[in-house]
């Protein structure tokens, strides 16, 4: 007989009820085309309206619905219930982040880090609007396009053991975002970002575990971005020591 329901074991944390979290079980209908987010919405609509969680587009472009499912960071809008048969499915807030309530995490820290790398075009010279637009070839776009696909879902921070151990680590998404601008032909801010990135809490804490790229739903490959930047920063450092007269 095909399975008709599936059990969710959901992490509940309500500070007003007590300092320790609990797991609460919910039985939801099993539908072949449902994702975990659909199941959570069913819980909130029909069973327990007190459950708190973030979601928005439900199609993998907004980056809001990241959670741990059976210990793996995934977008709940992309995780089909069928994958986790027969269940139960354990749902927890994203790892390595403080939990505000139920499945909602505090992400101010990462938001600040994204901002820290100056994620905007820093042109060599300010061009007045009257001079017209920047022109960019498709080849130049290819140089950085992959790193522009990040949806800030923070699954990579959840997967990164270094970020878990060292909350000061600037992290995969921030470095990939910096590379999106460093490799953009219109940008001249490489030097400026070097100060933030080539830091003990910047790229140098990364030990290429590679889990960030493994969990990224958009194939941004932050691990690759970081390794490339290590080469860039090292070349820059050695050039400044061995050939300080060069520009």
């Amino acid at each position: 007989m095909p399975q008709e329901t599936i059990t969710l074991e959901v992490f509940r944390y309500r500070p007003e009820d007590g300092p320790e979290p609990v797991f609460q079980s919910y039985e939801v209908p099993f539908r072949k085309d449902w994702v975990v987010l659909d199941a959570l919405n069913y819980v909130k609509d029909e069973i327990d309206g007190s459950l708190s969680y973030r979601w928005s587009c439900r199609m993998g472009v907004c980056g809001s619905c990241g959670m741990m499912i059976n210990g793996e960071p995934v977008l709940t809008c992309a995780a089909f219930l069928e994958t986790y048969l027969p269940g139960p499915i354990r749902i927890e807030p994203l790892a390595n982040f403080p939990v505000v309530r139920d499945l909602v995490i505090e992400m101010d820290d990462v938001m600040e880090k994204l901002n820290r790398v100056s994620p905007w075009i820093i042109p060599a010279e300010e061009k007045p609007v009257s001079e017209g637009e920047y022109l960019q070839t498709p080849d130049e776009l290819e140089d950085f396009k992959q790193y522009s696909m990040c949806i800030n879902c923070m699954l990579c921070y959840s997967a990164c053991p270094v970020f878990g151990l060292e909350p000061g680590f600037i992290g995969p998404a921030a470095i990939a975002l910096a590379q999106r601008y460093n490799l953009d032909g219109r940008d001249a801010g490489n030097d400026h970002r070097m100060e933030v990135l080539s830091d003990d809490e910047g790229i140098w804490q990364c030990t290429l575990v590679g889990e960030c790229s493994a969990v990224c739903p958009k194939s941004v490959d932050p691990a690759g971005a970081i390794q490339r930047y290590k080469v860039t920063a090292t070349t820059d450092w050695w050039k400044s020591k061995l050939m300080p007269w060069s520009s």
Partner: protein
Amino acid sequence: MSHYPRYKKYRPKVYRRSIPIFWWVHKWPHTRFILRELTSVFVAFYVIVLLLQVRSLAAGPQAYADFLAWLQTPLALALHVVAFAMVLYHSITWFSLAPKAMVIRVGRTRIPGWAIAGANFAAWGVFSVILAWIILAV
């Protein structure tokens, strides 16, 4: 008259989950990562053995013969078998990760990762043959 509402910043009582000391035994990708990092211990082990072998050469034919005899002991062989597996794992993971740091583009197409890794593996084969020939043909 500006009488904007003064909000008190909401400071939630957050719950922080701790990381166990041996976090890397719980998930295979993490264990595999630590094993990869520990290959460096066996790299260091072997270059020290190599150094001691060179030193035995400097100390004379008897010392060299003694060292060769030590290499044949069960302990030495066991250590070398383990070390061989680990240094192979170092080489395989090192060359497989090379494409992450080396991105070479020809026009719009990026040279695929397997090609860069493949070139590294091929060079490894060539160097190994050359070194083997130097040691054995002498």
